């Protein structure tokens, strides 16, 4: 049933790297791609679906492996051993599971072993999945969940509700397997019975990306983890001399006896075949064993999807066994260590294959270790190229904006600059790729620096620079270089540029100038990329702030008495400001120069709000740094500072708090700090990873930080992201 759905989704997993094998063949090695986690896999008609058979296979392989090493009777003897196993396989038209008729009796009585650990690492026996969740997760419900009344025209045998495994067991070669055939042949191109297949294809595509169902049905098998681990340990990574010897002898194509043509091993039975010569393809088609693993790289191919598939659980098994075996491999230089590893190899065998009772115990400590490890992709230090910490800290902040990350990692930038080597957006793109490459060595952003020197000349040279100035400069250059990403509406209206920078950073700052004589208001809206806030202790001190405003409009939960907060600064920023008698403005309604007040409010909130605390003050010839501590919250509500809130306040209308409250909420994701004095200092940044993990980035050094570290830091630039739009 599952294998009747041709899955195309696995194609979206792009090979991350291609490796040339020593043999000369190219092989795709693929990392967990975004879709990789989704990609599912089931062996379809594969024998893996039958627990009995799987167990038997494990036993067989075990015996076979031991036998081969003991007797060393070579490949001939081994093939003799393999034959009975293969003969047990059903005829091509039959589903593999249909021959293990006794399975049905055994199955329900098999107690679902469930260990307390919920980690996928734990090789627990999964209780048989209930049909309902399976149906929910993918595929046409009518096909997957026999007990449910099918909503689509169902294939004949599935119309009546049956116990889950019932219909499968009784499947007659003429009914369901035929359907399988029709689909299969349809895929193959000879679509005489393609009607049903087409329908299935359509239904499948409506379901959205769910992954490879053939993997899923492979994973239904009782011992699939054990089997897969065994295959990896014995035939693919082969860490111990014993298994290596075995691999050297046995890993040749069962059809042509060569080893060079991308040898793959069937996951459902013991069969090795050439990939390039299509021997394994032939086997898969005749036996309906849909999954095979590359014997030299460990990637798994699905013959139904016609592509390599990347399943999280399977890849974890591959990775675990690989690491273990690589360790063994490197330690086999001396005889002593060789013996040790032999011993450990034996132990391993005992623990994983034989004494099932020990499994949970042996696995649990590992689980704890895994918990401690942090997700580090995206955390990469940046080398200081000579007073370039001002750049590094901004780069760290920018690379952690989810939307910007999505934009660059999905290669959405289309460069039409005359010389792409000068395009800063292209450079940002490769910078994002470098930052998220998973490499742990610090990145050297020399290209970026060079381009900044070219495009923002005032920042050129190795002098210390202001991080805020750099931020504005880089946003400006990025904006200029990506103008062409959007259609040329730019010229007509500078406010609605559609480039990624403007989409993310641009907010609308409304400035209302009220004439003191006629009280008419003239409103202008200016785009802004950041909000520069005055600090208490500066010349424009705001101790004179009217108290009633503060009490009435702003929820002050983040406020610590006596310590000015970010909210205070924002209030000061949006206060009505008397422009004074010296700067009269011509009022459009009374047609004369009048004194007036000006008030700033947020007309449009940006997706990323960048607050610049003006710590560097220049008054006349005096320049100083203001070290006043400003408390800032992890979550910020911008509602009080909106133009609409102000309007509704003027009209004495209750501000619609409930519906807007979530829309205007922001959460902190990056803080940039300046240490030192105005003349010389250093920039560092705090970066949020995932939901609540904070890291301190000091050029090339990245360390874990606590929320206290961050909240008690001084703060120079604060980056907030609109809630609901960030997804990690």
């Amino acid at each position, binding site marked *: 049933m599952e294998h009747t759905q041709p899955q195309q989704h696995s194609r979206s997993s*792009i090979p991350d*790297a291609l490796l*040339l*094998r*020593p043999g000369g063949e190219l092989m*795709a090695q693929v990392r967990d791609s975004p879709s990789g986690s989704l990609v599912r896999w089931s062996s379809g008609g594969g024998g893996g679906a039958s627990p009995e058979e799987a167990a038997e296979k494990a036993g067989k392989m075990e015996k076979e492996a031991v036998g081969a090493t003991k007797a060393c009777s070579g490949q001939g003897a081994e093939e003799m051993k393999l034959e009975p196993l293969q003969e047990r396989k059903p005829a091509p038209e039959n589903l593999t599971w249909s021959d293990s008729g006794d399975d049905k009796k055994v199955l329900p009585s098999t107690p679902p072993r469930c260990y307390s650990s919920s980690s996928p690492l734990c090789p627990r026996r999964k209780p048989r999945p209930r049909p309902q969740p399976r149906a929910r997760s993918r595929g046409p419900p009518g096909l997957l969940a026999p007990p449910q009344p099918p909503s689509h025209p169902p294939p004949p045998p599935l119309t009546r509700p049956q116990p889950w495994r019932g219909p499968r067991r009784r499947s007659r070669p003429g009914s369901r397997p035929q359907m399988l055939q029709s689909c299969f042949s349809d895929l193959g191109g000879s679509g005489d019975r393609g009607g049903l297949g087409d329908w299935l294809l359509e239904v499948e595509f409506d379901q959205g990306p769910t992954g490879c169902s053939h993997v899923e049905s492979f994973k239904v098998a009782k011992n699939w983890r054990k089997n897969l681990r065994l295959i990896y340990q014995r035939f693919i990574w082969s860490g111990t001399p014993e298994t290596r010897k075995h691999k*050297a002898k046995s890993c*040749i194509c069962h059809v042509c006896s060569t080893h060079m043509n991308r040898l793959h091993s069937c996951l459902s039975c013991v069969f090795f075949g050439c990939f390039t010569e299509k021997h394994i393809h032939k086997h898969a088609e005749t036996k309906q064993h849909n999954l095979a693993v590359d014997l030299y790289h460990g990637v798994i191919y699905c013959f139904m999807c016609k592509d*390599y598939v990347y399943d999280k659980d399977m890849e974890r098994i591959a990775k675990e066994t690989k690491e273990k075996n690589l360790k063994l*491999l490197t330690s086999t230089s001396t005889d002593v260590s060789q013996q040790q590893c032999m011993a450990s190899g034996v132990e391993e065998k005992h623990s994983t294959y034989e004494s099932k009772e020990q499994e949970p115990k042996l696995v649990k400590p590992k689980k704890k270790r895994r918990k401690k490890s942090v997700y580090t992709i995206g955390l990469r230090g940046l080398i200081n190229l000579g007073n370039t910490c001002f750049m590094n800290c901004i780069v760290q902040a920018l690379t952690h904006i989810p939307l910007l990350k999505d934009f660059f990692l999905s290669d959405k930038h289309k460069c039409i600059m005359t010389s792409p080597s000068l395009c800063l957006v292209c450079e940002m793109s490769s910078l994002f790729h470098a930052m998220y490459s998973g490499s742990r060595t610090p990145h050297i952003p020399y290209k970026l620096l060079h381009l900044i020197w070219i495009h923002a000349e005032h920042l050129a040279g190795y002098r210390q620079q202001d991080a805020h100035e750099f931020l504005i400069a880089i946003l400006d250059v990025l904006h200029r270089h990506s103008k062409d990403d959007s259609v040329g509406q730019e010229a007509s209206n500078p406010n609605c540029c559609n480039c990624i920078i403007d989409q993310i950073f641009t907010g609308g700052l409304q400035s209302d100038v009220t004439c003191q004589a006629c009280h008419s208001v003239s409103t202008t809206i200016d785009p802004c990329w950041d909000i520069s806030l005055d600090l208490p202790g500066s010349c424009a001190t705001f101790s004179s702030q009217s108290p009633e405003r503060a009490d009435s409009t702003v929820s002050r939960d983040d406020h610590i008495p006596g310590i000015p907060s970010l909210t205070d600064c924002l209030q000061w920023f949006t206060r009505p400001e008397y422009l004074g008698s010296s700067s009269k403005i011509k009022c459009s309604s009374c047609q004369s120069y009048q004194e007036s007040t000006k008030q700033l409010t947020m007309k449009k909130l940006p997706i990323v709000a960048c607050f610049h605390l003006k710590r560097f003050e220049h008054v006349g010839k005096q320049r100083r740094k203001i070290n006043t501590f400003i408390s800032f919250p992890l979550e910020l509500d911008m509602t009080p500072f909106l133009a609409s809130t102000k309007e509704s306040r003027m009209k004495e209308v209750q501000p619609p708090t409930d519906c807007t409250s979530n829309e205007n909420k922001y959460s902190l994701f990056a803080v940039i700090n300046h240490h030192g004095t105005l003349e010389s200092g250093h920039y560092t940044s705090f970066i949020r990873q995932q939901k609540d993990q904070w890291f301190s980035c000091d050029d090339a050094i990245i360390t874990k930080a606590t929320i206290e570290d961050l909240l008690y830091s001084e703060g120079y630039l604060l980056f907030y992201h609109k809630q609901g739009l960030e997804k990690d």
Partner: protein
Amino acid sequence: MVVSKMNKDAQMRAAINQKLIETGERERLKELLRAKLIECGWKDQLKAHCKEVIKEKGLEHVTVDDLVAEITPKGRALVPDSVKKELLQRIRTFLAQHASL
């Protein structure tokens, strides 16, 4: 069985391959090659090329098979001679040590 069809050359290849696997040298060579290819930028070049191919054909219409077919000639050609030489040297030394073959 099939062995009789295999010519001497192929037999030799198979024997060497067996020895390489048995000793674990194959894995070590693989790791070495991987490191060398990353070091010399081969991996990045090929990655870029793959991206081009995918962009050209559209993500939904590319399978690994297509990609392998398209990229293999270029991939082979791009391997620097120095890397080939080093690998060959390693294999030679290995064979000299296991001359009993």
